């Protein structure tokens, strides 16, 4: 496999939910090894849809999804998890009635080997979770719950991590902390693809950014390029 | 589309008619008419359930209770007054006690609202209820004893008004509507299966009250010999004009009298059924009906458009239950007796549901068709099952197994009804006559 092709790419994706109208129009999303890629754009631009398409949650009429050189377009989301994709949905992303530790165990459900090391790594990344491991996840604060959600997805030792608006509904302080944690996860070598509402902060930590408008790629570039792009700034970064 | 559906309806109704007419030829016209009369009543019950389920998606499994209330209405309206039952220390005191009980509950509810945020709200309301209960019992118990002591072998209850029994039909509807109002007020705001369990429970309690409150309708001592809205067979047989007419016609006067009585019932019931179908069709196609269906198809958006969903649901719940109560009063009229122990949920609630699902939920004609068809099957599965088992056991030696199998034929009907329900739900979920 050539070193230049991205680790995970959803290429020229066109499709929508079920038999409904197309939401994505030849949209391309990708993330390179060791990098953070973010998908940003105005409301209703199809950001989350694009990520779900990469994860196999909607039917593509055209385009393909390639993970580490393998075409996985035909695989179900469950099979993609087995192939090494970790996905954190935007809402309902933890088992609220179960303890933090049980949440992590369930994250590792498909693994038959000993996952205690992985759990220790997650606890190292998110120390607060270790303190609260016997508590029901539903009793935690919003930011802590998001850490549980990310930790759960990390338990499969994914080759790529996908986050759907991880900072939705948390306070600015918590948001900064979450971004710090995400950078730390990225430093462990896992490529991260995420959808973000808070475009400015997200682009600041991003290696690559995809600006979507109405299901199409409007701008693509490094985080810095996009932040500097007058068009992008004017249209949705607020000048 | 509508035309083909109309044709389909015509064909299916014709087929059901063939079943009934066939019964007349093969068994007897008496049997056929007996089944038809209960078929008519079943069709009305199915119509009532369909109003709730088909129009509003309300899952009412308390049909038995509403039917029994209709039966109670028949007793209270039509049975003979009991002399001395309405004395100051008897019937009137029972009524007083019941009013006091009602007032206690009303006071508790009002207090609960008024004392919002009060520290002792629970304690105050609970003490009102407890004191109210004991006062109620103190007034109620001696009055009940007085009434039940009056000629207990024959009456021992408050008796009826001695009015024509047809008047009991609307009264049955009103009684059922009242009960539905109470249930609806408490349970309609909750989730669908809670309503189911609430109605199931209320129906059981209504039956328990009928069984145990002897002062009301004699409990398990039953009320028999309720007056009829149609002539009695013996009177017809004693009527020279009738006997002559039948003999000229070439019929046996005894059989003819019984058929005449059943036909009279059938005509009365048909009038009610047709009137109800006409009314429900009118309602369904009125602006009110369109709103109801809009609510059913999308509750959220209807609520967003300012429709009062809960109030409409309450309306429909009351209407459907009233229809069941009406049918219940008609059934007790047909039986001329009220026997509380015969009320069983499988027969009076769940069988009606089989009728609605098989007939076609949301379609009034479908529910009526289901009523006729399933009732016919319910009656005929037993002899058919017996025939089947006779065939199976024909080669068997006489003995334990054969005897057991023959005895068991009676239970084939439950099995059959369950299978029909499951098969229709699976392979034709919208029923024989789907909603347009």
């Amino acid at each position: 496999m050539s070193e230049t092709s991205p680790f995970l790419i959803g290429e020229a994706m066109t499709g929508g939910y079920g038999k409904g109208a197309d939401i994505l129009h030849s949209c391309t999303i990708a993330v390179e090894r060791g990098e953070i890629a973010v998908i940003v754009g105005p409301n209703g631009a199809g950001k989350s849809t694009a990520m779900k398409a990469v994860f196999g949650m909607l039917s593509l009429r055209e385009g393909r999804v390639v993970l580490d050189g393998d075409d996985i377009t035909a695989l179900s989301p469950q099979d993609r998890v087995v192939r090494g994709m970790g996905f954190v949905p935007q809402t309902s992303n933890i088992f609220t009635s179960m303890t933090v530790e049980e949440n992590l165990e369930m994250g590792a459900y498909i693994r038959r080997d000993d996952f205690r090391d992985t759990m220790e790594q997650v606890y190292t990344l998110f120390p607060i979770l270790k303190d609260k491991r016997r508590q029901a996840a539903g009793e935690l604060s919003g930011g802590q719950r998001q850490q549980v959600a990310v930790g759960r997805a990390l338990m499969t030792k994914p080759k790529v991590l996908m986050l759907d608006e991880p900072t939705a509904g948390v306070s600015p302080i918590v948001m900064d902390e979450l971004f710090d944690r995400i950078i730390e996860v990225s430093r462990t070598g896992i490529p991260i693809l995420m959808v973000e509402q808070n475009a400015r902060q997200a682009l600041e930590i991003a290696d690559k950014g995809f600006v979507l408008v109405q299901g199409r790629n409007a701008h693509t570039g490094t985080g810095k390029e996009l932040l500097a792009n007058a068009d992008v700034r004017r249209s949705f970064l607020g000048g | 589309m509508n035309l083909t559906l109309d044709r389909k309806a015509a064909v299916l109704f014709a087929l059901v008619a063939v079943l009934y007419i066939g019964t007349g030829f093969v068994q007897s016209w008496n049997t056929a008419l007996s089944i038809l009369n209960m078929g008519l009543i079943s069709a009305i019950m199915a119509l009532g359930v369909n109003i709730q389920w088909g129009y509003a998606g309300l899952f009412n499994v308390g049909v038995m209770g509403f039917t029994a209330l209709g039966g109670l209405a028949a007793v209270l309206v039509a049975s003979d007054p009991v002399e001395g039952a309405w004395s100051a220390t008897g019937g009137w005191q029972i009524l007083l006690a019941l009013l006091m009980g009602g007032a206690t509950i009303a006071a508790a509810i009002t207090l609960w609202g008024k004392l919002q945020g009060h520290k002792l709200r629970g304690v105050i309301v609970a003490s009102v209820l407890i004191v109210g209960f004991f006062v109620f019992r103190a007034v109620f118990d001696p009055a009940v004893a007085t009434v039940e002591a009056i000629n207990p072998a024959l009456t021992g209850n408050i008796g009826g008004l001695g009015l024509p029994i047809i008047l009991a039909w609307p009264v049955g509807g009103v009684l059922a509507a009242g009960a539905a109002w109470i249930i609806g007020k408490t349970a309609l705001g909750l989730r669908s299966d809670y309503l189911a369990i609430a109605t199931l429970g209320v129906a059981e309690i209504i039956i328990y009250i009928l069984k145990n409150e002897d002062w009301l309708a004699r409990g398990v001592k039953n009320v028999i010999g309720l007056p009829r809205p149609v002539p009695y067979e013996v009177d017809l047989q004693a009527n020279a004009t009738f006997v002559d007419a039948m003999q000229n016609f070439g019929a046996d006067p005894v059989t003819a009298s019984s058929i005449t009585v059943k036909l009279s019932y059938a005509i009365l019931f048909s009038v009610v059924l047709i009137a109800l179908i006409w009314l429900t069709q009118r309602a369904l196609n009125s602006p009110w009906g369109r709103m109801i269906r809009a609510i059913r198809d999308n509750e959220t958006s209807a609520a967003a458009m300012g429709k009062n969903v809960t109030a409409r649901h309450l309306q429909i719940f009351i209407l459907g239950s009233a229809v069941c109560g009406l049918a219940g009063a008609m059934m007790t009229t047909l039986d001329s007796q009220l026997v509380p122990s015969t009320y069983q949920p499988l027969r009076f609630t769940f069988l009606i549901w089989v009728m609605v699902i098989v007939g076609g939920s949301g379609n009034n004609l479908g529910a009526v068709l289901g009523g006729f068809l399933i009732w016919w099957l319910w009656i005929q599965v037993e002899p058919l099952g017996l025939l089947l088992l006779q065939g199976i056991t024909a080669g068997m030696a006489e003995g334990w197994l054969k005897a057991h199998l023959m005895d068991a034929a009676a239970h084939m009907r439950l099995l059959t009804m369950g299978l029909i329900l499951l098969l229709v739900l699976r392979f034709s979920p919208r029923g024989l006559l789907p909603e347009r």
Partner: protein
Amino acid sequence: MDFLNAIIALLNFVIVPATAYGAQLALGALGVTLIYGILRFSNFAHGDTMAFGTMITILATWGLQSLGVTAGPLPTALIALPLGIAATAALAVGTDKLVYRFYRQTKAKPVIFVIASIGVMFVMNGIVRFVIGVGDQNFADGTRFLISARDFREVTGLDEGLAIRTTQAITVAVAILAVVALFWFLNKTRTGKSMRAFSDNEDLALLSGINPERVVFITWLIVAALATTAGVLYGLDKSFKPFTYFQLLLPIFAAAIVGGLGNPLGAILGGFLIAYSEIAVTYAFRKVVGYLGPEGWSPEGMLQLLSTDYKFAVSFTILLIVLLFKPTGIMKGKSV
């Protein structure tokens, strides 16, 4: 004032029978609540599932008895119970494959599942009546009393006797064993945790690679075991009659809802709450109060709040109160 005799009378007529009944209701409600948590519908066929399991156990008991096999002082039905459970499990899993799976695949609304369960109820009810008839069946054998009233009086010298029937003791012991095993399974094993995860958040469970069909399969196995055990214990304690089992549906539902649908701990709590209230409200307290009063005094009247015939009304009233004031139940349950 005779405090001791009052307590014994209360124990004998209220606490002991209510504890046994509560254990039976709790096991029944656990089944209902598990189905609600995993399959997300109220199973109207649960009472008849209990009846089916009990029927098989009774038939096996008769078979064992005719072979001369008994459990000595214990009821023979305990030996037959595993067979009843196995048959009920096969029936439940078969029913799921034939009926419910289709609606799962088509993502039907919960009320459609409920209607399907009514069809299943008819069929099971028909099967049970077909095989064993509608009559009462008494199948308890072995020693009748653990402590008989007369022995108790002789040993303690009290006026009031305390009788504990073997079946009551067994009911409580078996129920405790079953509940401990269930909670160990749900909280400590990987499969049990996956069931809880599925109940908590179906989509995320799928995302985590939990196989829904396997979860549903295991759920039916457990439900069959619980239902059969509950049914057999109830039958041993009282007697077996198909219609009574259908009627148990109401207090069982009440227990499950009062405790919080989908919450196993709540189901147990609900079961005992319903049982104690039913028996306490319909018990005539005359004797107990008589002992508490001065010597030779006895209260007028029976001191019975409601006639025993209204015991279902009690469970229903509790149900209504809980629904009105705390719709998710005492312990937090699910609401779909």
